[in-house]
């Protein structure tokens, strides 16, 4: 149920996938909108507060997701060798970009030693500060990594639909229900 098997994703992986998909897309839209806000807009300070707070939670979820991915079995990928290789590369790219966006975002706000308040409840301390022009540099990385992540994730989503509608694999279905952890990859025995 919760755990993965070699034939399907468990509920934990499924929840983590969709939670982080929602988190990243939401953060991207929020980030895009808030950086265009006029100084006199009522959300000028509030939007970044949400962006930072949610971002830190997504960082927590992402680290948890990676640990879970590490300790759990992974369902095998269908398709040709090339397809499997491309899928592997794409997924690795998504993980790398996710971490890059999160870490660079953290490095912007903490560049001068202040921590990041998560909804005013806990403070994430600043660990790396005072690198030359840290906030601006981290900001540039944050922006391009976020764009790259959204581009790659859009392609990833499209391919998932292609597998579902064109190839008629169970790829998308097994990211929606933990049912496949119990069945063999190509039907029953």
């Amino acid at each position, binding site marked *: 149920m919760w755990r993965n098997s070699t034939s399907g994703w468990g509920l934990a992986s499924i929840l983590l996938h969709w939670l982080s998909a929602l988190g990243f897309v939401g953060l991207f839209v929020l980030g895009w909108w808030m950086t265009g806000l006029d100084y006199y807009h009522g959300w000028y300070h509030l939007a970044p507060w949400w962006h930072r707070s949610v971002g830190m939670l997504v960082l927590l979820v992402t680290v948890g997701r990676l640990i879970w991915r590490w300790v759990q079995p992974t369902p095998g990928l269908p398709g040709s060798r090339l397809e499997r290789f491309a899928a592997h590369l794409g997924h690795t790219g998504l993980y790398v970009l996710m971490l890059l966006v999160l870490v660079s975002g953290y490095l912007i*706000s903490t560049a001068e030693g202040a921590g990041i308040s998560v909804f005013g409840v806990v403070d994430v301390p600043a660990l790396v500060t005072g690198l030359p022009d840290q906030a601006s540099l981290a900001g540039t990385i944050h922006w391009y990594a976020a764009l790259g992540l959204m581009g790659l994730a859009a392609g990833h989503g499209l391919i998932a639909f292609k597998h579902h509608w064109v190839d008629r694999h169970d790829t998308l279905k097994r990211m929606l229900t933990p049912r496949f952890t119990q069945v063999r990859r190509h039907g029953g025995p």
Partner: protein
Amino acid sequence: MFKKTALGAALAAASLVPLAQAQAADYVIDTEGQHAFVQFKISHLGFSYILGSLEEFDGEFSYDPESPAASSASLEVDVESLTTNHAERDKHIKSDDFLDVAEYPTATFTSTGFEPTGDGEGVLTGELTLHGQTNTIEMPVTLLGEGDDPWGNYRAGFEGSATLTLADYGIDMSSFPEAMHELELYVTFEGIRQ
């Protein structure tokens, strides 16, 4: 005998003084020992002030109390080092909305004249380049003190300030209240005589 030698030595030393002074009028600003600050102060919506600092710069000046009118100074500031103690605000100030540090990483001041106005006081005129644009500014400066320091050098220290209109430097503040269209620049520094 001893007295005579001492007198002779003193005379010889005294005759060297004018020469030594002419050479020694050049000072390097003590940025290494952090006895130098370039700061600014700008209104925040008319409610209070934002105080900021430019942490990295180098400069030198020439100053001779015997002929103060010949004084000169130059300063080169790394604008990237700007801080107002708030990382996100500083990132914004350094972005192309304001200072565009990526395009214009340095600001410079080179004096073109000095007019003494009193004992240890005067007005320094010079070219200030900021955000890629150059204007002539006048900065009243005051000699705060000079003399031998405890570590074997000779120091002289000054302070000065000037008000800059940001529009003169191509920095668009039109969407902010009038009070934010100008800022006050304050510098204070010690130079070590070379």
